[in-house]
């Protein structure tokens, strides 16, 4: 299985993502944001970081970079595109997933482990996972998901919420919401479920001795789903 990680100026989770994808069997290629053509692959990842210094709005500049037209075409043709953290911000700015990511409610950069609950397994990312609650890491300043009421209705009607912030038992109450995100939303899909944007970093949870293994479960399952 082939994957591509796009590196934007200011990306800083691109190599971590490369390590994670390679560890679980992907043949990964790094692609520079200024390239025109996306190499043939089964998965494209927009990594975390601070592309273009978060100028204007997080992800707004990166969403207009040269490679993004190919990424958008790939996504529109049904290809799997995953955006993590700043990658999620780039996805919303490019219009591939609905909504926006605002500044965290209490104006703090949040860097900690959180629990997230998978809401919908009827998609290539989460199908066949045998648990619902995952411990993953978040590190962001703008992860406060927001969308209009009309968009929210559409997202809910189409089961586009991918994951919610919750506690270790999977309770998705407001007190387990780290950043003020609408309805505790931590990640969403596009309508077709081939594009996934989420704030938590699965690539930071792939080593028992360093962090945890819930990211490993995600990547192992993902490559099996794609095969």
């Amino acid at each position, binding site marked *: 299985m082939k994957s591509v990680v796009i590196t934007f100026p200011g990306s800083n989770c691109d190599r971590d993502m490369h390590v994670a994808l390679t560890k679980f069997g992907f043949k990964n290629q790094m692609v520079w944001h200024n390239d025109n053509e996306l190499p043939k692959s089964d998965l494209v990842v927009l990594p975390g970081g601070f592309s273009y210094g978060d100028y204007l709005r997080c992800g707004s500049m990166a969403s207009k970079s040269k490679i993004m037209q190919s990424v958008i075409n790939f996504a529109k043709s049904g290809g799997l595109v995953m955006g993590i953290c700043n990658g999620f911000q780039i996805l919303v700015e490019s219009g591939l997933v609905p909504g926006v990511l605002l500044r965290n*409610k209490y104006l703090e950069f949040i860097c900690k482990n959180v629990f997230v609950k998978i809401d919908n397994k009827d998609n290539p990312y989460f199908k066949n996972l045998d648990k619902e609650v995952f411990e993953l890491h978040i590190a962001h300043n703008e992860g406060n998901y927001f969308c209009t009421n009309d968009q929210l209705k559409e997202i809910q009607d189409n089961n586009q919420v991918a994951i919610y912030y919750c506690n270790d038992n999977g309770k998705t109450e407001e007190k387990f919401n780290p950043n003020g995100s609408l309805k505790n939303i931590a990640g969403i899909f596009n309508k077709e479920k081939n594009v996934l944007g989420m704030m938590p970093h699965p690539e930071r949870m792939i080593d028992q001795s360093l962090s945890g293994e819930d990211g490993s479960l995600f990547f192992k399952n993902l490559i099996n789903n794609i095969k």
Partner: protein
Amino acid sequence: MKVSAIITLKKDVLDPQGKVIHQTLDGMGFKDVNEVRQGKYFEIDVKENDPKKAQKIVEDMCNKLLANLVIENYKIIEIQ
């Protein structure tokens, strides 16, 4: 022509920075404040001498990059 545009958050969008500025102003003794909303201001010098055309160019920029219309509104405030 120089075109000035301001971008503001829509009414129902939470503005935590504006809230903190409000609280700080309150703490400094400015007690007559109802609300503070923070926005962005752009001055764009475009290679166009017709004011209407210049305005259109900057509006196009606002629609495509400078503002995110899910949460923000823009307004051209000056053309000179």
